[in-house]
């Protein structure tokens, strides 16, 4: 019986640790995804798209496409 309780506790501990590790990992990834790179990539892409949109009189759709392309390109090149 003691063995059973002990093994259950061990399994629960393992689950908790695993969950914490995953949570930490997620939070790191979120920091990377939502704070550092994306803000600078977002701002850089948005600024360039706005400048081109103004100069060339781009439609909303075109300006978004320029933005999306530059943003993806920035994210791919700044992992």
């Amino acid at each position, binding site marked *: 019986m003691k063995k059973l309780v002990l093994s259950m506790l061990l399994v629960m501990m393992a689950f908790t640790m695993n969950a914490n590790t995953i949570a930490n990992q997620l939070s790191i990834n979120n920091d990377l995804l939502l704070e550092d790179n994306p803000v600078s990539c977002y701002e*850089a892409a*948005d*600024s*360039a798209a*706005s*400048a*081109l*949109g*103004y*100069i*060339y*009189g*781009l*439609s*909303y*759709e*075109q*300006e*978004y*496409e*320029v*933005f*999306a*392309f*530059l943003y993806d*390109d920035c994210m791919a090149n700044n992992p």
Partner: protein
Amino acid sequence: MKSIKIILIVLFLCQSIIYSQNQFHGKIIYKAIINNSKLDENINDKKNSADTKYLMNSLKTQDLEYVLTFNNNESLFIKENKLVNEGDKNIKIAEIIVGKGTYYYSLKTNELLRYHEFGGEPFIISLIAVEWKLSQEKKQIGKYECFKATAIKKIKNKTGEIINKSIIAWYTPEISLNLGPKEFNGLPGMILELDEGEVSFVASKIELNPNVVLTINKPTKGKKVTQGEFEDIVKRKTSNFSRN
């Protein structure tokens, strides 16, 4: 009796010649040119970052070609498939500025369509043709005498403001099909040069009645929408972008 036969044959031949002269099929290659005047004014603007300036500078040299394939009933305007370096981001941005999509026009029904994929989803957008003002001004493009026509195209920008873009077209009645690049057609002749303000299309090669069969495939796969509906869909799909 013999003379009647000869007259009939001559008449038939004349009719065939006249008919074949009025039948056009072929293709026109247009060079798309991104005009630099506004770019030069803005390239040294302190507001623009070094990256933006570099991007602007490299757009000047982009060389894009488009093909208008046509017959007496319909036309298709599409970007020429050239081998380009897939990693060349300037070409991709130049393509967006020039205008992405395939344009189809039916001379029989006046149906004007643009096929475009947005956010991975294909759309067939029905467009309304612009209203032209004809002028007597003329110039020579290659061996063709061309006349000037102007129009206004309305565009909604990121802030929701409507921009009136001045369009100038040079068309030749010598090719008597009212077709042209992108959604621009309806003039009494083929458009050989089109100025959309910041982007121009100039015919660089005209192939009339070649001995090859040219196929024109009307776009059929995609969600059918009007221009207004498409703009709403784009806005909905990009709500994060439009918040600024």
